[in-house]
């Protein structure tokens, strides 16, 4: 019996190592050492006491950003409505978290959408973590008033 068990164990161990490597590859974002420093650097750019409007309220942002996180309301679907919302609520910082490992890109923050944002916002940080993950911090231009 010991021989059979050891044989099965050896086969399982070999199979397990290759499957663990597959899992690692499928979740390679977990091994990306740029991720946390990028969030920390972004947090440092936002003054203490200011809130950060985020494109997604992901658990990572909630945990690693010490500022108050405000998720963009679901009703906002255009650049103008986002602008109105931020100016009305006296919010200055917008963090676009584009993580295609987890969720599809919001059209408002697609490459075209972001180009439109640049008229009213100034990009103050851009961190490319990998081919699917980006952090972009925008600051609303100061002359905006309704």
């Amino acid at each position, binding site marked *: *019996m010991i021989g059979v*068990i050891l044989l*099965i*164990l050896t086969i399982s161990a070999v*199979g*397990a190592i290759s499957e663990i490597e597959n899992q690692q590859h499928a979740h390679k974002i977990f091994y*990306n050492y740029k991720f946390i420093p990028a969030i920390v650097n972004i947090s440092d750019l936002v003054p203490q006491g200011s809130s950060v409007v985020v494109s997604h309220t992901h*658990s*990572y942002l909630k*945990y690693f950003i010490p500022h108050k996180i405000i998720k963009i309301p679901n009703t906002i679907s255009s650049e103008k409505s986002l602008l109105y919302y931020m100016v009305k609520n006296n919010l200055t910082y917008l963090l676009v978290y584009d993580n295609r490992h987890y969720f599809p890109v919001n059209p408002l923050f697609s490459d075209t959408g972001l180009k439109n944002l640049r008229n009213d916002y100034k990009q103050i940080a851009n961190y490319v973590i990998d081919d699917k993950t980006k952090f972009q911090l925008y600051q609303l231009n100061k002359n905006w008033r309704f």
Partner: protein
Amino acid sequence: MWTKTEYLGLLKSHKVDILFIIFIISFTAYFYSYVSISAIPTSDGAEYLNNARSWLYDTPISSAYRAQLISWIIAGIWQITGENWLIIKYVIPVFTLGAGIILYLLLRKHKGNLFAFGVSTLTLLNPHLFFWGTYIMTESLSLFFIVLSLYFIKSEKQSHWFLAGISIGLTFASRYSTLIEVMTIFVVECIIRKDRKFATRTIMSATPIIIGTIFIVYLKVGYFVGAQPSDTHFTFLLTPYYLQNSLNIWGFAVLLVPVAFLFRRTYKAKYNYTFIAWFIVSLLFWSANSNPILHLPRYTVQFTPAVYFLAILAIENISKINIVRKSFHRIGIVFSDEVK
């Protein structure tokens, strides 16, 4: 002072135990090499860290539907060490190792050390258990408490039945859905034992823990939910996902599981009933979930020991067939029980 003969005799009589200790030491080194290279927690892990922070600083909980025991453990550790997620990254995987060791101790007592060695090592080498066990996840924590409950439930000591109840309660607190698995184990054991004292003692200690867990969450959040509404749709039309992917999930050993069911010996030993029920009920439960997003290999972690128990049981049954013994004799292999 021991003589050389006594020393060698001890080594000989405990050779499987020594082999298991060597395995655990090498496995721990390999396992923690994976723990150390992870750079960020999983998104679920970050939720548990957020919840822990909420308990620690008394702020509103961000995801109330998640089981809170892991966050209480994290908050408890942070009370001593200060808030640092890197400490937690190294602490939570200990439960994976703990589950493997308790499983060995449990099976060693009832099925022999070779059987225990086979089941425990196969369980720890399962790639999904290994991978998710290296993270801040409830998979390893709940597996630890299921195995601990099983250890106490299978014990003949009456004081252990009380501990079994506490462990059942903590299994619920570690991952709400695992209550189904641990209750299956408990109910089957009640039927096997037909001992009112066993049932009462276990229920008496499990109930306050389960009610207490619900009550603490209720006091903090104002309500209690065990899961997100989207995760609780069940259907009689079972998904074949787990059967289709069984080779990928459990490896070649899973091919032996149906073989175990072919032997009369499997049903003769009442000890096996718990593992059979644990396997069948868990497989049906996860296959009955109609949400395809929830068809994931990592949900099998909580009943992986039952799968490997049945696989090793099949090998044990095959090895007891006379014709197999004779064939092995012809090629010069003698089984260990025959040597005795």
